Every structure is written in structure tokens, then in C-alpha cells.
């Protein structure tokens, strides 16, 4: 997410909002935003309800066997339709901001 923060102005200029979602409570999100200088919102899903709704749960992968989110990125357009999805097969490999910006530019160019 560091790389998304670095290129946040490119998302802003296109009218794209960036949000992070995890099981971390708001208190941790507050601390992390401050420590890492994140200016986009980090949303808290402590019971992993939304994470389950999106089927991106990684059961037992957290501390003490807690359920957490697997890394995943979705680009949702203004009408709420998913336009691009990235479901990594390694927790070390995440989407890069350029991929998302390209996906956005492509569906905009297609006039949809």
C-alpha cells in the first residue's frame, strides 16, 4: 500500500478513491496511518464480515490462528460494478498502482 500512497495524486486526479480493508481495529489503523503516512482511509472489519462477503478470507492465517484477509484488490466503478480484480497467489506479490491505473484508463477509454 506504500506504493499506492506514493502515487495517490494520480488516483486523485482521475477521481479514484483508494481504501484499505483489514481486520485491524480502528486504533491500529490510526497508528499505522500515522506511522506510514497513509492519507487514504483504512477501514476496519474486525469480525471479517465484509472480508467473508468478498470471499477473500484467509482462515487461521492471523496471529493465534485468527481469520484475516488474503491480499486482494478490486477496482469498482462509479455505478458499483467491479471492473478489475487481482487475486494474488502469493502473499508476497501485490497489485501495483500502475496496474490499477491502467485498468481504469482502459475501461474509461472503452467508453463504459
Amino acid at each position: 500500500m506504500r506504493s499506492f500512497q506514493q502515487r495517490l495524486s494520480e488516483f486523485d486526479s482521475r477521481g479514484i478513491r483508494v481504501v484499505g480493508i483489514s481486520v485491524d481495529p480502528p486504533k491500529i489503523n490510526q497508528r499505522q496511518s500515522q506511522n506510514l503516512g497513509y492519507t487514504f482511509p483504512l477501514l476496519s472489519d474486525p469480525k471479517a464480515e465484509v472480508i467473508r462477503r468478498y470471499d477473500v478470507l484467509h482462515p487461521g492465517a492471523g496471529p493465534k490462528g485468527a481469520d484475516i484477509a488474503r491480499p486482494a484488490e478490486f477496482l469498482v466503478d462509479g455505478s458499483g460494478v467491479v471492473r478489475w480484480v487481482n487475486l494474488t497467489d502469493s502473499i508476497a506479490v501485490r497489485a501495483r498502482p500502475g496496474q490499477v491505473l491502467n485498468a481504469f484508463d482502459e475501461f474509461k477509454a472503452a467508453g463504459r
Partner: protein
Amino acid sequence: MNAGPKRSWNWSLWFGFLFVLVGFISYAFLFVHFPVTRDSPWANLLLFGAGAILLIVGLARAFGNPRAYRGKIFGPILGVVGALMVALFCYAFFYAARQVPASTGAPRVGQKAPEFTLYDKENKPVSLTDLLSGSKAVVLIFYRGFW
């Protein structure tokens, strides 16, 4: 006391081990922060490779020319510990990190993204509808968390 010639400390063993050690710990502390070195651990593998060459050179010296070089005892120890670190790294990166659920039920391109309301860091509710209002798109980044 020792009547033989003074034996060299066999630095290539120690430097080889140091390279492997740095390769082992640098991923979590340094390379993970940059996508170029995070997605593929080439920098760590380079360090492992350089370390392995130095360790092999050092071991060859220790056993091939024990009168000039030290290391017949600590050489194999450093070599085994180094090999274990490389094995553990490869296990973690190439196997353990890939044990990710398939998420076959995740929303697909063209489907409506499920609505949600979650709390931001100030404990204020934020819904997907809120995020979409007045914006062209929203990127949802699900992440493992910092705990």
C-alpha cells in the same frame, strides 16, 4: 607452542556466511518495502549466490590447504547454518507464501460489488455507497493487517 606457520583466518568463509545472513534477514526489513524486490526475491537470491560461492571457496581452502587456512571446524558449521537459512527462506517464499485460498467466490469483473459499511480510523461508519458518491471509481485493497 604452535610450531607451524600462522594460519590465515579464511575470511571468505566469514564473508560468505555474512552474505547469506544478510540475504536471509534483509527481505523482511528492507526488500519487502519495494515492489521490485518484493514480488521476486532476486536481490536475496543474489546475496545467497554470492555467499554460497564464498563459502565454497572458503571450504575448499580449509580442507585443501589446512596448513595455510583455518576453518575445518567452523567452516562446515557456517556452511550448514547458511544452507539451512537458504532452505528456510525458499520454503517461506516459494511454498508457505503461496498457501493462499483460491477465493473462487470473490466478486468478478462485471458483477456488482457487495455493499458494506465499515469503520474508519476515527470510528466513523463508511459505506461503499459513500465512497462511490462523487468519485469515478474506488480501489478496495484487502490486506492482511498489522495486528
